[in-house]
């Protein structure tokens, strides 16, 4: 069981100090590695990004969280309108995204970073709902300048955005290495590491076939063909 956080934020996407403890309050048993991995994800989102500042990334998460809950808004006041629109659309209608959505941004890295932040936000929100916990609060976002560090080897191939190597689930965000690494980290936390994916008999909280059953049903509900 996870101990309650130090406070109950009014706006959990924006109201947490970095020194606060874990904020998942649930009667469901949760493995320490899950708690630690989710904490890393919230810190990573609130830290300075590649094209967006930490405070803008937390705002992206806030907009995505509201949109997924069927609410308008979220605290996106620090974001330009295209970023707010994209965050909400990736949260609710990712399968409808098109090249025009990417081309809204001068640099596709800005779009890729939004996709990564939104996708991880929805992932940890789904987990929290599943274990009957409140949405997990983010630390206060930093205002350090974005790093601008993209993968110079990424090229436009068969997907909407440039990728390093063939376009696939594990390279989708590779234009922005920090997002690529954050996705791999959370994938290993919530499900299996990329290495563990090669073991059909692995048991990680549940046997592999049970994990895959939930995974497959999730993809079908989302109309995703992977």
């Amino acid at each position, binding site marked *: 069981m996870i101990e309650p956080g130090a406070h109950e934020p009014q706006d959990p996407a924006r109201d947490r100090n970095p020194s606060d403890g874990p904020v998942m309050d649930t009667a469901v048993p949760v493995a320490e590695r899950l708690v630690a991995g989710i904490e890393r994800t919230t810190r990573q989102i609130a830290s300075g990004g590649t094209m967006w500042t930490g405070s803008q990334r937390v705002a992206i998460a806030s907009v995505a969280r509201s949109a997924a809950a069927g609410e308008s808004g979220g605290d996106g006041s620090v974001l330009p309108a295209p970023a707010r629109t994209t965050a909400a659309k990736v949260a609710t209608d990712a399968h409808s995204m098109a090249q025009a959505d990417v081309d809204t941004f001068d640099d596709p890295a800005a779009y890729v970073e939004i996709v990564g932040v939104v996708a991880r936000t929805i992932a940890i929100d789904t987990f929290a709902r599943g*274990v009957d916990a409140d949405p997990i609060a983010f630390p206060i976002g930093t205002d350090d300048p974005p790093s601008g560090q993209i993968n110079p080897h990424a090229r436009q191939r068969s997907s909407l955005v440039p990728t390093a190597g063939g*376009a696939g689930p594990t390279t989708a965000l590779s234009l922005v290495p920090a997002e690529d690494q954050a996705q791999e980290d959370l994938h290993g936390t919530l499900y299996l590491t990329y290495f563990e994916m090669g073991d059909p008999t692995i048991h990680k909280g549940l046997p592999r076939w049970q994990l895959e059953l939930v995974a497959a049903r999730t993809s079908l509900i989302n109309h995703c063909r992977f």
Partner: protein
Amino acid sequence: MLSSSAQATGVGLDLRSLGDRERSPGREDASALLRFADALVGRTTDLDDARDHLTDVLGAEAIAPAAAAAGNFEMMNRVVDATGIPAPRRMDQLAPQLGLRLVDGELLT
């Protein structure tokens, strides 16, 4: 991959229950997991009941890993869809085994 992991561990499962939810998967644990995923990802009002049922069938320790698996694929689905990663062609061939129909490029239940 689900088919491979089920076979590797000797689990008999009717995969058509994934797409055809009127069909039983043939196992109570699988049925409870599918019900939980439906409620969690579909954001339906019976999530508490589905969680309680999964607890009854597999124990409270099953909830977090099941929720985490759903969370991971909520992430990956959005990443591949929003970046336009081409779907593997084998999915079209697998559709009937999963209780699905492929119509105009869309998988339908």
